[in-house]
């Protein structure tokens, strides 16, 4: 096992990793930007190193600075958290070259699964169901039109280098396809420095279902069941849960086994997620693979009792998984609400500033993952996530009741947050029925108000 790890992230996920390390008896080195200098979680680490000024490009996204910090701190491994460099294969490669273990999958797995076309090829090979799409990239608008005619409108034009809901355009007929294609290419070139596009059949009103898996370096892969992440605002997840409501045991098994086949084929080690679209006919389609720990991992931890971050670390240290698929069961229902410092009254603009009054919820069935406290200054520089409320109860109904009463207990002043929106969703009849799809917040809920 490692004796000393560098945490190459900030905020709640940095705290999450520090906590896991402490419980494993591993020393931690926290890096921070000047903006985060006063954050209290830094004091829970064994060492703190300032790596640069606020902008991510000069600190949390700056590979040389992070590697230099790892070298002067003499760590054996780096945990990247999520976001920032977590899915950057180049960073993983630099770590490997510097003889520092990157806590995540191999560079090869990351490259393969990070490329949307490659990932689709692999998924097809692993017999993972998929919506009709172009064979690889489409070279020009003519090829795109041909593919679209074959698979039928509406279609989505997606950037190969996109992901997480970014770099997508929709076309309902050839005319819109022709104009969208040009926009999409220009945008992809600007946003990702990679103009390659592909076309796939557009699935409307789908549920977002994803499968958590763990693989070790000894060829073992297990899934830890699914998460439902259909409550999204502008393709950003807002509320996640496990298990997914209303999934038949047969469908659950099919989806989860698909993920395991794909992970095995990718020779995957570490924690990862396969994302699927579940359409209105209960048919599932491969979406993408995330080669990192995810924001919503706690709901899986609650229902399975498995600490995913600890297992990421153990796996990177070469340990074998201590459980087989048959050992894993899910118990009860878990829901996560993302608490973002955003102002719902102003189009969810970030709401940074000092937290003048703060009381977090607690009690039976409540877990609170956050680096925030009364007096904390939320910087305007980074992601607006300030905490995650996770509840775990024997049934979904009870979990919803617990989440509602916990949301009611929050006192966060004067920062505006997504708490009112979460409360609204958790009281919505459609959510209670488990019939939410990924566009529902915009289509009906925000329109309603």
């Amino acid at each position, binding site marked *: 096992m490692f004796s000393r790890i560098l945490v190459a992230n900030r905020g709640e996920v940095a705290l999450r990793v520090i906590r896991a390390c402490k419980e494993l008896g591993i020393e931690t080195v926290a890096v921070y930007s*000047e903006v985060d200098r*006063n954050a209290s979680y830094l004091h829970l680490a064994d060492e703190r190193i*300032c*790596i*640069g000024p606020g902008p991510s490009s000069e600190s949390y996204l700056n590979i040389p600075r992070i*590697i230099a910090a790892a070298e002067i701190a003499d760590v054996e491994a780096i945990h990247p958290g999520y976001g920032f460099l977590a899915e950057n294969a180049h960073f993983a490669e630099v770590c490997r070259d510097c003889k520092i273990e990157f806590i995540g999958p191999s560079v090869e797995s990351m490259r393969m699964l990070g490329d949307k076309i490659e990932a689709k090829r692999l998924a097809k090979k692993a017999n993972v169901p998929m919506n009709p799409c172009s064979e690889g990239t489409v070279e020009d608008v003519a090829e795109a039109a041909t593919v679209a005619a074959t698979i039928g409108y509406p279609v989505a034009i997606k950037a190969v280098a996109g992901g997480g809901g970014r770099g997508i355009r929709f076309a309902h007929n050839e005319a819109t396809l022709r104009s969208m294609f040009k926009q999409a290419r220009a945008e992809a070139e600007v946003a990702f420095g990679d103009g390659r596009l592909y076309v796939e059949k557009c699935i409307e009103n789908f549920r977002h279902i994803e499968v958590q898996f763990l693989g070790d370096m000894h060829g073992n892969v297990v899934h830890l069941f699914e998460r439902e992440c259909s409550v999204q605002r502008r393709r950003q997840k807002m509320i996640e849960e496990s298990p997914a409501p209303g999934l038949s045991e047969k469908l659950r098994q099919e989806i989860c086994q698909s993920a395991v086949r794909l992970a095995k084929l990718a020779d995957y080690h570490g924690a990862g997620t396969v994302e699927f679209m579940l359409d209105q006919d209960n048919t599932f389609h491969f979406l993408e693979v995330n080669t990192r720990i995810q924001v919503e991992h706690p709901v899986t931890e609650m229902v399975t009792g498995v600490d995913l971050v600890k297992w990421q670390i153990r796996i990177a240290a070469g340990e074998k998984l201590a459980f087989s698929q048959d050992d894993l069961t899910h118990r009860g229902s878990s829901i996560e609400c993302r608490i973002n410092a955003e102002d719902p009254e102003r189009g969810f603009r970030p709401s940074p500033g000092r937290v003048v009054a703060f009381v977090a919820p607690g009690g039976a069935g409540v877990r609170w993952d956050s680096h925030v406290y009364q007096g904390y200054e939320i910087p305007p520089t980074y992601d607006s996530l300030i905490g995650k409320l996770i509840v775990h109860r024997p049934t979904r109904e009870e979990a919803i009741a617990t989440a509602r009463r916990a949301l009611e207990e929050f006192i966060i002043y004067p920062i505006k947050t997504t708490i009112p929106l979460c409360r609204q969703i958790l009281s919505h009849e459609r959510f209670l029925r488990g019939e939410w799809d990924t566009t529902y917040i915009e289509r009906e809920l925000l329109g309603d108000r």
Partner: protein
Amino acid sequence: MPKKAPKKTKRKSPAAKAAKAKKRRSAKEMIEDVRELVDLMTAHDITEVNFEDGDKRIVLRRGPPAGAPAEAPAESAMSAANSEPAPSRQAEPAPADADSKPADELFEILSPMVGTFYASASPDGEPYAAHGARITEDTVVCIVEAMKVMNEIRAECSGTIAEICVKNTQPVEYGQVLFRVMPA
């Protein structure tokens, strides 16, 4: 990225900010002042500010009433709990022998990167910048090694080395003070 140490330290003292407030008319602005003062007090565990300017006056007191021991806000309480001081540039005063001038009138040369500090080009070599050495803006004062690359650090200010703040081969973080310089 060496920086001129500002005449006044980066985070202005409450008094300095208060001074700025001089010719203000509206109470709104004055409340803004109070807000700033309160932030400063909270952050630095100041228990009292008494600010007068002509006919304007602000008095602020925090924590327990006079006589009781001072109380710490969350941050210093954190330090108390972990008995580890927060990393803070303000916490390092210039040694008394550096000069008779107060430390905040010296320039500071800060490390532009995370890495390892080398005072000289080779283990036995002469230091780039010894105590009392005269330097100009282009003088290389040390090397910071990061990822096997030796980065020469230039003074970007001129004067005399008043203090060498780190030891040879010591790891340094971004923004750490390497030298203090008496302006020419």
